[in-house]
């Protein structure tokens, strides 16, 4: 019955799949994986519509990574308008608390109830429109933000799934286990595990160093019977790309809008030239096919002939 629908359920009705990117530990690359996932899903089909929601309220990184620093959110009659990374094409929408801060060094010092309210607003007030995928980037831990997300999205639980990101170190794996326990407790299906920062290739001699140890993700996936979606090495090219994605000063913001299209194509082109994007391809294909299996819909053609490298 329509009357029973919560505002969140109503708003999220037009979204096909919701993917929550989580990890127990901080700094393992949740945001960079979320950004890559969104970019790769965007590139997976010329009509794919993707949204990315950053619920890391006290440390939002997504705006910087997508080169949207300094942009603002506008209010429309149908709700908050997400910031579109690809300008007029409007296929890659983004929402983050970073867009709501007056100065970028402002801290958001909030306790749980306020964070809960902000998340509810993000879920119910943002005018995403029709989306194929909504990628949600979460803060580290298993606390207020995560509980609030799941609580508010309970009416659309059947469309939720999670991707867990970890690094190969024992310390990070321990936290990833906690995150996995969390997903099991709240009955959230896990699409798979991504092992990030698995090795670093010296730009000088090509020697691979295991900066944060190695193989831990594979081992955890085996023990816990999870799919290992892929391992990503540290890619300085990608770090630089996501880090330096040129920011717009607020006075340039207006000017920016008109040039938006041209510039983001740049980001996606640049991304597709990095070696990470090639490694990320099978990961995205794995995600798409796992989603197709879980929702029982016919697979997208690109996923069918995907060779998922193990």
């Amino acid at each position, binding site marked *: 019955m329509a009357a029973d629908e919560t505002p969140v359920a109503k708003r999220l009705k037009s979204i096909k799949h919701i993917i929550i990117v989580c990890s127990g530990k901080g700094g393992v690359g949740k945001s960079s994986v979320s950004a890559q996932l969104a970019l790769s899903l965007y590139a997976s089909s010329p009509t794919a519509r993707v949204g990315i929601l950053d619920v890391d309220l006290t440390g939002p990184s997504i705006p910087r990574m997508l080169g949207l620093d300094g942009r603002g959110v*506008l209010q429309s009659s149908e709700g908050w308008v997400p910031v579109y990374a690809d300008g007029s094409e409007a296929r890659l929408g983004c929402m983050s608390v970073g867009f709501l801060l007056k100065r970028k060094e402002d801290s958001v010092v909030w306790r749980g109830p306020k964070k809960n309210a902000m998340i509810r607003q993000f879920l119910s007030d943002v005018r995403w429109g029709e989306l194929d995928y909504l990628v949600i980037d979460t803060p580290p831990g298993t606390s207020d933000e995560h509980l609030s997300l799941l609580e508010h999205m309970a009416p659309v639980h059947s469309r939720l799934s999670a991707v867990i990101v970890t690094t190969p170190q024992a310390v990070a794996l321990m936290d990833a286990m906690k995150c996995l326990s969390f997903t099991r407790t709240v009955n959230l299906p896990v699409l798979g595990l991504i092992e990030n920062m698995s090795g670093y290739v010296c730009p000088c001699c090509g020697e691979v160093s295991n900066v944060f140890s190695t193989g831990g993700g594979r081992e955890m996936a085996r023990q816990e019977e999870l799919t290992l979606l892929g391992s990503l090495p540290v890619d300085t090219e990608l770090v*630089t790309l996501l880090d330096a994605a040129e920011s717009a000063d607020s006075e340039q913001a207006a000017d920016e809008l008109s040039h938006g299209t041209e510039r983001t194509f740049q980001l996606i082109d640049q991304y597709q030239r990095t070696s990470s994007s090639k490694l990320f391809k099978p990961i995205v294909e794995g995600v798409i096919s796992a989603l197709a299996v879980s929702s029982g819909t016919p697979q997208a053609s690109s996923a069918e002939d995907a060779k998922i490298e193990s």
Partner: protein
Amino acid sequence: MIAVQHAVDPLSVPSDAPEHCPGTESELAGKTDACAGCANQDICASGETKGPDPALPLVRERMSSVKRKILVLSGKGGVGKSTFTAQLGWAFSADDSVQTGIMDVDICGPSIPTILGIASEQVHASSSGWSPVYVQDNLGVMSVGFMLPSSKDAIMWRGPKKNGLISQFLKDVDWGDLDYLLVDTPPGTSDEHLSIVQYLKESDIDGAVVITTPQEVALQDVRREIDFCRKVGIRVLGVVENMSGFVCPSCKTESQIFKPSTGGAKRMAVEMKVDYLGAVPLDPRIGKSADYGVSFLDEYPDSPASIAYMDIIDSTQFTLALCFIALILCP
């Protein structure tokens, strides 16, 4: 344009308050629209809440035997807060006459027990309170990691429960006489941070060491953390740049894994007007030592990273001593 509002004093909003709580110490406490329906509205309106928290005297008493309290903070996760805290603890306690305590308030992801190699230990209660777990005679540790039935268990707590545990760590743990209490925090600027600052308000925090990595994405969060310190009145002892440069073990060339695209921590420190304590290079052996729970400083005392750590620890102590002298001269 829509923007977030920061009207109230963040320290006076209780952890279980409604979302627009004006703060219990505000003139409007119990009287605003947001207060309608709050279970504590009557208490706020009566003016009782203008007084101090009942836990504060207990915390103050416990903390009266602790000489220095240092927070280790960072806006971003995974930059090496816990590793740095552990190295600092080991370095301080290398002197037999110095008593050091480490308190891990990262409730959802406690790493300190693993890094210090005491992950399987448990906390025991005695008549004088909970006994910390000792790594060595003069290095005591308290973490929620000691209280879980299995390391796989997740703690899914909202703010108020986390705050309850933090207040217990401060008032119920039998720390004894300590020269240093190091507090390792989770990433961000939220419940845990507000609580620890609130509870230690009367016992004076000596300062905070802020850890970052060189790339702008991390620096952004660190600027917010420094902004937080200013809002709540904590002195920033300095900024440490971790994972700064990587020396290839094969060809010995240094490369930047996390490129300082905006000048790194050094420039950020100048911009934010805080001290820059130094940079620690990325060494895979640091992570490995942390996984095995051994002291990197003891295992590889001659490595460049150890030397960098020791320099930073020395300048931290120096800054602390300066603060102390300044306090005596102009109380």
